[in-house]
């Protein structure tokens, strides 16, 4: 058990690291968030479940989400933890056993009346062990995804990918152990993440070709399927993915090639995009246009979006740690994982 002061320092440190982008990558962010929330739950003394929910949601969760609103994984994890707490309390209370998500409102109302410290004392360790389970699941995300590699990649296929995604990288490498196929990597200007991806794949012995972004459409007709990673999956099935992904997905649509997205469920966000700019991140325009151009930079507006929004119609399949799902099924996953009360943190 850590003292509240240590805990505050830990929260502050994560908030700062998130804000300064010192923790990057959705996976690292979600693991860190989950660990911190486990600490928060175990350190908080509570008699009524609303106290605990308030602490997790408003005191800690909100600060973490505000620290880096573009890192949707933070909000996802906070939501999942909240859902988990609600669920556990629900099954634990005397309405328990029967209530599994169907009669949310009524059981909650009853529960709030049950403010016995004894109940809290008994529920707390259960919640913590549940949280631990969630962390374990997060840690095993990759394993669960790459186990499905064999079902999706077949011999002599040509696969296109864009950007650098750890999930996709491991996915392809696993498949390459048994099957022989070739990969086309779009270089992904201006970050050139495609170069790194290609290097890593070719080191693993996969037949890899780097193509320039402008060649994506031209070679699409030869490609069997597009496999890509994503930064986040929105509630409607749309993706927030590295810039260039939208072009790849559109080209694939034109040629009727399947677009397969490998993602852990922790990237699934209960939020809807209200326009293409929401959740996007505009980074320094330096790589697009050098600051040394001097005169010109005062006269033009330079935008360098880091992400693309890929609409759900362009995606054929999500391969998650719980198996493959079409975009139309995501609403179900969201209902299973998040509580509607927590969508707005």
């Amino acid at each position: 058990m850590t003292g509240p002061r240590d805990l505050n320092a830990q929260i502050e440190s994560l908030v700062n690291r998130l804000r300064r982008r010192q923790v990057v990558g959705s996976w690292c962010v979600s693991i860190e968030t989950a660990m911190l929330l486990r600490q928060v739950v175990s350190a908080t003394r509570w008699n009524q479940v609303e106290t605990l929910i308030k602490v997790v949601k408003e005191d800690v969760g909100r600060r973490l989400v505000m620290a880096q609103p573009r890192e949707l994984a933070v909000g996802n994890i906070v939501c999942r933890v909240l859902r988990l707490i609600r669920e556990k309390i629900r099954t634990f209370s005397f309405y328990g056993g029967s209530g599994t998500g169907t009669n949310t409102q009524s059981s909650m109302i009853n529960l709030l009346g049950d403010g016995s410290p004894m109940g809290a004392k008994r529920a707390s360790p259960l919640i913590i062990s549940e949280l631990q389970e969630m962390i374990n699941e997060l840690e095993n995300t990759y394993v669960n995804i790459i186990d499905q590699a064999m079902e999706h990649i077949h011999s002599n296929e040509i696969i296109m990918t864009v950007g650098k995604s750890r999930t996709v990288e491991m996915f392809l490498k696993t498949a390459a152990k048994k099957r022989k196929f070739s990969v086309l990597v779009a270089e992904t200007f201006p970050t050139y993440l495609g170069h790194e991806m290609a290097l890593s794949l070719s080191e693993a012995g996969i037949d890899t070709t780097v193509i320039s972004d402008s060649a994506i459409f031209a070679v699409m007709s030869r490609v069997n399927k597009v496999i890509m990673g994503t930064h986040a999956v929105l509630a409607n099935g749309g993706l927030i993915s590295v810039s260039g992904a939208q072009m790849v997905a559109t080209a694939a649509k034109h040629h009727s090639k399947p677009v397969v997205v490998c993602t852990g469920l922790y990237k699934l966000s209960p939020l809807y995009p209200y326009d293409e700019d929401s959740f996007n991140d505009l980074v320094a325009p330096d790589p697009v246009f050098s600051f040394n151009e001097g005169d010109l930079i005062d006269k033009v507006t330079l935008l360098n979006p880091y992400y693309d929004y890929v609409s759900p119609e362009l995606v054929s399949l999500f391969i998650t740690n719980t198996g493959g799902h079409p975009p139309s099924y995501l609403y179900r996953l969201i209902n299973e994982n998040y509580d509607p009360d927590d969508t707005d943190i």
Partner: protein
Amino acid sequence: MPPPSKTSGKNLEAESILQAVVLADSFNERFRPITLDTPRCLLPLCNTPLIEYTLELLAVAGVQAVYLFCREHSETIKNYIKKSKWSRSYSPIKIITIVTPEARSVGDALRELDAKQLIDSDFILISGDVVSNIQLEKVLDAHRSLGESPIFVLDTKTNECVHCESVELYPRKRRMTMDMEVFKKHADVQIRNDLIDCQIDICSVEVPALFTENFDYQDIRNDFVHGILTSDLLGKTIYCHLVKDVYAARVRNLHTYNAISKDVLSRWTYPIVPDSNLQEGDSYEFMRGHIYKEKDVSLSRLIYVSIFEGLIIYVNNTYFFIISIRSCSLGEKVLIGAGTEIAENVKITNSVIGRRVTIGPNVEIDGAYIWDDVKIKSNCFIFRSILANNVVLEENVIVKRGCLLSYDVVIGPNVTLEPYTKLTKHKKTSESDNEGEESNENKAYDSTLIGEHGQGYIWSDKVSDTDDDEFDTKNIQIAGLAHDISNISLTDSDSPPSVIYESSSDELSDSGESTTEEESLKEFFKEVSQTLERAFLDGHAVEIASLELNTLRMASNTTFHDLRVGVIPTILGQIDIENLLTSAEEILEQWGPLIGKLIHSRQDQIDTLYILQDHCAITQHHAKLFAPTLKKLYLLDVLDEDAILEWNSSELADNDSSKSSIRKKVAPFVKWLEEAEVEDSDSDD
């Protein structure tokens, strides 16, 4: 953007904490009169105090202890730090404020640091107004493993900085001198002036001690770096770390303030942008067109009419044509703080609006920096100016470019402020460092200038720059005017040049010649000739005269070239024309070596020849002097034959008859030299 770092072979201990020294005082007065009320490091840039940017940079780099040096307004800074998130018990950075009221320069601050014995490991030295997204960790790593735009001369292999020279806009520098040693030691040398010095130094423990030893060091760049580089005795080295594709700049003056604000708004400094909400409680959101809005901003109607003007609405089979919706419009690069209310028909472009500002109807704002709690009433027009906290503009006020309204000033109604007006609530006379030449002493405010309800005094820049880099007044003008350099006829472009232009300052200076510079040069020449005449009269030794001249040169911050321009005509003036040959022989025998003392290289020799030529080309009378002088100087070994030949072979300006006649006069002599040369090389064979 190379932060030079100093190592002495001693590396950081892995477990020792990383320390940083932040100079919260700029040791100059370029932000007056605003800095009368607030220290520079707390001035808001895009609604965030400058020091936050610096501390953030240090926090990212993993600095654990920060020593903050303050001089003026130390209490304000202390209070600010105390209230900020940095002083919470669990803050990763510990900030210790040190007040040094007597420090007048960076050097003083560092000596103080040494005296207090606070630093026990290598540290980062940075001033409190740096905005940057440099990954200092990488630089630090480089420093551990190893151990301006000004012109930097770098060894390409080791990144050792071997020479560094600062370039001011005025006086122009056309040449620089470097020690030949440099080329002997370093096979591969790069000379660059495309670098921007972001004033971040990583110093080894010995640095403060060195400052104590060399008590005359004032400035890090001009004195310290130069001192280290030129002195063999110290045996220290300075390394530069070149960083590409990152942003770093220092808010030195109003001009850079403007440029950096623009850069922050157009996200060059990412991730240090408004919507990453550096300060706690900030809630900026980014919108298309580089518009940043905090929560609780009330814009009239919230419609960006500029786009939707002439909107056609189709209702119930009828077309409604809406001619114009009266509302406010936000252009590009606008930042608006929380609690601000903007009335209808307001136009804002390229501006930063602080918190709790009220802007009345029909106001137009372009390129302005409006700080917190400002009230602007209807029909005002503000162009490229700064309005500090609590300024009130009454109806119908026009603020033209470059104005600076300090805290609590009230203007209007119905007033037009001329460009570059600076207004403050403080009376000039209360300042001891400036002569109280202000006319309205103890009088009420000048109502013709600032309107009936106006409150405030004109602030005129009698700049007494304590920065010790002897500034040309012109430089100050450029720095201060901030918003429009074109007004001083330097460039044609109307847009304010961005910070990157610092590096191309030579270019800028080519198109304009300043009268002030000429005046100061004239003054300098006068002093040179007076010094020389004293020397002639008293019959000083050449060494003493040369020492005096050199001191004079340093005092007025001129070059050897200027010195030669002053000295040569004066010496030639001593020659008695009537009795040309003997007199020339006599005078030059004695004073020729003095010219020699001012010459250090072949280039200098050629320069001398040109000066000589120019002087002698003034009249027919002077022309006679040329041949004997040249011969004598050659005999005295002041000028060597290579230089003379090179000069002779250089092209003359067209139809310059007097100069070509001079050339003709020395033709036999040159010919003789050429032959001697040939013979020389023949005999070598």
